[in-house]
């Protein structure tokens, strides 16, 4: 689920306000945007690339690898199925508030076809120096710089904060993988960790999790087997029980999903768990020895 500079990107919903704003920025950064979709604007051009009615048409007309979806919640299932059936290698699903039964439907279809899904409710992926897909400020050099730290985050804004701290500490990122804040997502923390473990040029991984679910605990099982150091932060230690903290996935019920459960699982696996985001630089120095 790491998007590369060679990947051809299709922007679904390219003509909308956000689709346009972020397509221009992706293009300026170097993302290979080859086309967009809008059901009624086929045959036109937008942001200097051809617009197709569907992803299937785009596959025939331009060919693409990764679809980035700027699509309203109740229309995502259809658009995602279109991209999957067109043969996309991967989908970046930015939309929040998609019904979960729809999410499980297109995630199952993607799995069958071997396509990856980032999200829903992700800010996207960045490979510094190559490309980005979604709405991350990849172009801001105080936040993203080519380097050796892989970063995984459920939250976009918190991912930005960690990348900022990583760069301020003198490092850079090999790749940023935004996995999304919804309770059911296409790529889990563990799967992102596995991908970064084998991604060339990655020397350590920063894992930014939050309360709710058991993804961090599952990732801890894999972290235990890794030679590369892992540094983690779990947001929501100060959150009250039983309330959804903004992200639908960020809710603690009983002990399940609690801060304490995640922290102890990660620490038992040899992961350095931070109290605050600003400690990330010092923790990386301690673990990497430089």
């Amino acid at each position, binding site marked *: 689920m790491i998007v590369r500079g060679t990947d051809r990107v299709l922007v679904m919903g390219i003509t909308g306000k956000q689709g346009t704003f972020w397509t221009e920025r992706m293009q300026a950064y170097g993302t290979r945007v080859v086309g967009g979709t809008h059901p009624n604007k086929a045959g036109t051009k937008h942001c200097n690339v051809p617009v197709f009615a569907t992803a299937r048409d785009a596959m025939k007309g331009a060919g693409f690898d990764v679809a980035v979806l700027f699509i309203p919640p109740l229309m995502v299932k259809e658009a995602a199925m279109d991209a999957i059936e067109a043969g996309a290698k991967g989908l970046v699903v930015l939309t929040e508030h998609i019904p979960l039964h729809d999410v*499980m439907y297109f995630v199952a279809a993607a799995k069958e076809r071997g396509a990856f899904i980032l999200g829903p409710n992700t800010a996207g992926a960045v490979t510094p120096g190559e490309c980005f897909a979604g*709405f*991350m400020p990849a172009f801001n050099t105080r936040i993203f710089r080519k380097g050796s730290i892989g970063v995984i985050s459920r939250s976009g804004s918190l991912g930005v904060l960690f990348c900022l701290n990583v760069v301020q500490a003198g490092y850079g990122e090999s790749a940023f993988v935004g996995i999304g804040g919804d*309770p059911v997502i296409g790529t889990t923390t563990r799967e992102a960790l596995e991908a970064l473990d084998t991604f060339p040029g990655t020397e350590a991984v920063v894992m930014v999790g939050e309360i709710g679910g058991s993804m961090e605990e599952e990732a801890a099982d894999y972290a235990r087997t890794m030679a590369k150091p892992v540094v983690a932060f779990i947001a*929501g230690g100060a959150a009250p029980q039983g309330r959804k903290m*903004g992200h639908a996935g960020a809710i603690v019920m009983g002990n399940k999903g609690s801060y304490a459960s995640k922290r102890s699982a990660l620490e038992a696996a040899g992961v350095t768990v931070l109290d605050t985001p600003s400690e990330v630089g010092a923790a990386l120095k301690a673990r990497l020895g430089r």
Partner: protein
Amino acid sequence: MDFEEHAAKPLLAGKGIAVPRGGLARTPDEAAGVAARIGGAVVVKAQVPAGKRGKAGGIKLAATPDEARSHARSIIGMEIAGHKVGRVLVEEQVPIARELYAAVLNDPSSKGPLVMFSTAGGMDIEEVAATAPASLRRRPVDIRRGLPHADAGTLVQGLALGVAEAAVTDALVKLYEAYAAFDAELLEINPLIVARDGRVVALDCKFVMDDSAIARQSDVSRAGTPEKLTGLEARAKAAGLKYIDLEGNVGVLANGAGLTMTTMDVVRHHGGRPANFLEIGGESYTQARPALELLLSKPGIRSLVINFCGAFARTDVMTRGVIEAIEALKPELPIFFSVHGTGDEEAIKLLKDRLGVTPLPTMENACKAAVEAAAR
């Protein structure tokens, strides 16, 4: 969205799962009336969107309508898990031969629906998972195909259900149908019983609807229980903002759920107490002005930290909203900013030009300063 038992059971019945005869009562007299209509022994059950009602004394057996009246009198008005009981469900008692457990839920690990079944019904399922894991059977389902009858059969095979096995299988298939039809996050029957007369009956039902599906389930969602909100929380919800009241005195405004929780965490790490959760990320990043106006109306706030890290949410847009609110309300409490990410150069310039304020270099600095100011 949570559903109380009396609102959830008709959804099961609509799919063909048997439920006890009964009726809802708001007063002790109504409860006696329902019991008289049913005839025979009844059970009086507190209606709140929470578990463990029995342990809290919210479920009682009654042999006569008079007894039902007196139980209803003690249950109505009691508090269970923070919910005041306003109504009771009065139902016929069904003689139990076996208690089972059945549920379908969204499972993040398999990224799809998970059907769970156990012969240890009537117990708390977390307890069953911990004490008798072998009795708990699980089956991940491909949501595109649903739960075929044969798969449901495999799930209940070899558990000595005898002649009831076919009816239990049938109930599982119908439970899955209800889960799929009503966009459930969780649909649980505990206990699902085999009655002495051989019928399979749902004695209880817990239903949580996916909040993202409420709009397309408008008919069914009307029967759900609205979330319990404070006055400010209700105002925020009406304005499309994600706001939660907390007890502290350091106000928090940030964009994105993860960053907002982290801001609260760092405030607490430095010995402060966050007053709230308020995030204006995603589509609501243009709502900074109403968000800050709302927060400033909360009593007891002594200082404020505003923490923006822009990805999708543009910090220049959010900062402009914040400045408008500050210029309109002229709050006297100290406010500390940290601003990074998309649009930050413009945002920092705006703060300097319009408010004469420079953001602190890190969020850590801003949180610490706000905690110190609140303690003064």
